[in-house]
């Protein structure tokens, strides 16, 4: 059965794990690959398992990220993949402009985040960057999961809101694709199925188990809503959203049709 009515509402890339979502008007996808530039950087713990050249997928605890470091969401970060310049702003004021293509720029950015994270004297994060690799949460499950893209069904988020009375910003889930117009929780029935995302074939592979990163309010730098507990209390599980594997090449645009 082919039904439609679903639409791609928003597209996001998160170049640095834990930092701001950057909206996209469109994105070119290729089979087996993720959103270009998504989570290609991470702030690794200097006393952890990541070191330059690490090719294995590491769990999120090896990195500074929202699950443990909510203050990362207090700055608005923008990475320009063309120039490799990372800009951070506080209330619209520029507080960091660093070229991640140079050692000086990386050093400047890491000192900035060491202060923001209030790390002990002498400790700075390590900028994790490995050609061909991403630092998504799913990376710990293997190299294929590393390239899954994440999707949120806005109807399911609204269902959570109506059942709990809480306002739940969908950006808390830091997904790549936000879709609307599908029945609430119908994305769960898609697991194992193929469907069309603005003409690009994708396969729904797994539900996304949420962690405490979703407690952090986007842009606030604070934990202000116990999303995992809300999910557990409301539904008896901790899932919101699904992972997708890209099967064909094509361009996905906001407004594009979702055909299931």
């Amino acid at each position, binding site marked *: 059965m082919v039904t439609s009515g679903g639409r791609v509402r928003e597209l996001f890339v998160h170049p640095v794990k834990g930092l701001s979502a950057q909206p996209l008007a469109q994105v070119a996808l290729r089979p087996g690959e993720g959103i270009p530039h998504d989570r290609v950087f991470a702030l690794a713990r200097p*006393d952890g398992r990541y070191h330059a050249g690490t090719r294995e997928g590491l769990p999120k*605890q090896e990195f500074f990220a929202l*699950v*443990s*470091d909510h*203050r990362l969401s*207090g*700055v608005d970060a923008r990475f320009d993949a063309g120039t490799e310049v990372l800009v*951070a702003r*506080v*209330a619209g*004021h520029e*507080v*960091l402009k660093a070229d991640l293509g140079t050692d000086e720029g990386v050093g400047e950015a890491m000192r*900035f985040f060491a*202060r*923001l994270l*209030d*790390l*002990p004297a002498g400790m700075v994060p390590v900028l994790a960057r490995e050609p061909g690799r991403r630092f998504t949460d799913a990376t710990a499950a293997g190299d294929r999961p590393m390239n899954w893209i994440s999707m949120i069904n806005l109807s399911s988020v609204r269902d959570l809101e109506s059942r709990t009375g809480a306002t739940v910003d969908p950006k808390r889930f830091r997904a790549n694709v936000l879709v609307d117009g599908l029945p609430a929780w119908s994305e769960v029935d898609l697991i194992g199925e193929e469907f069309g995302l603005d003409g690009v074939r994708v396969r729904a592979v797994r539900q996304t188990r949420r*962690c*405490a990163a979703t*407690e952090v309010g986007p842009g606030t*730098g*604070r934990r202000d809503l*116990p*999303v*995992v*507990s809300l999910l*557990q209390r409301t539904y008896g599980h*901790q899932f919101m959203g699904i992972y997708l594997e890209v099967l064909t090449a094509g361009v996905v645009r906001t407004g594009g049709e979702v055909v299931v």
Partner: protein
Amino acid sequence: MRSLSELRLRVSETTDLTPTVRRFVLRDPWGAALPDHEPGAHVVISTPAGHKRAYSLVDPGTREYVVCVRRQSDGRGGSASMHDEVQVGTELLVSKPANRFPLLPSPKYLFIAGGIGITPIRAMVHRLRVQGHTGVRLLYLTQSAEETPFLQEFPGSVHHSDGGLLDLWPHLADPDDDVRVYCCGPAPLMHTVRTLTAHWRASRIHTEQFTTESGGFSPFTAVWAPTGLRVEVPAHLSLLDALRRGGVPVESSCEAGVCGTCRLAVLDGEAEHDSVLACVSRAASPQIVVGPHHHFRKDSS
């Protein structure tokens, strides 16, 4: 009912500092000395109407406690009861002083006070002046000169919103690890200061909301029993994060208080809950001793 930690004090003097702010001097009816306190300390006063309200102590010393109360016309009645039902001679139940806003040593300070939020800040600035500390800056934000308690004490530091809101950004743009920022005032001011210091070290930013429902977490000390390592757990960090920063490897999964992976054993001290999940649980005592929780997991996934 009066608890052992409460004092029964008599109002010995009242003064109107502004049309809405009244100063109350509280003394022991028999002239006994009162428990000492440090700048930033507050007492909880039971008002004649039965509210419990926290007020900062504005002057040092053990002979008397001095609090200043702004009448909140849109409040819940606590300040109105203090203004309308308390006079010289009234006896009030007053808690012993507590301090959730302590003045920590620092080479430099930036104090930001909003309105009646000057009360703990004034105690801090006075202490530092007495000590001859030279690295003190104060921004005291009020509505108007008329509504500025202690106006004469802070020449050059007071900014009135009737002359336009002060832009705080120039004062906070450049984070300085040698500066501690102390802010007390209404919720929107605290929110602004927290927002504008997102790129500062969180440990350098100290805020106290001047209402009883301020909430928030209190810092405590955790001792890791296997090694005796002492770890300070500040308000903005979980026990789990603080232990990890101290080099203690605690296993965790959901980090939301659900899965139980990071459960710890409490060997001494009190926790907020019966069992301690390091990702969400905090101590109810100033110090807590914790160690690994030995147990058999039903699943190994």
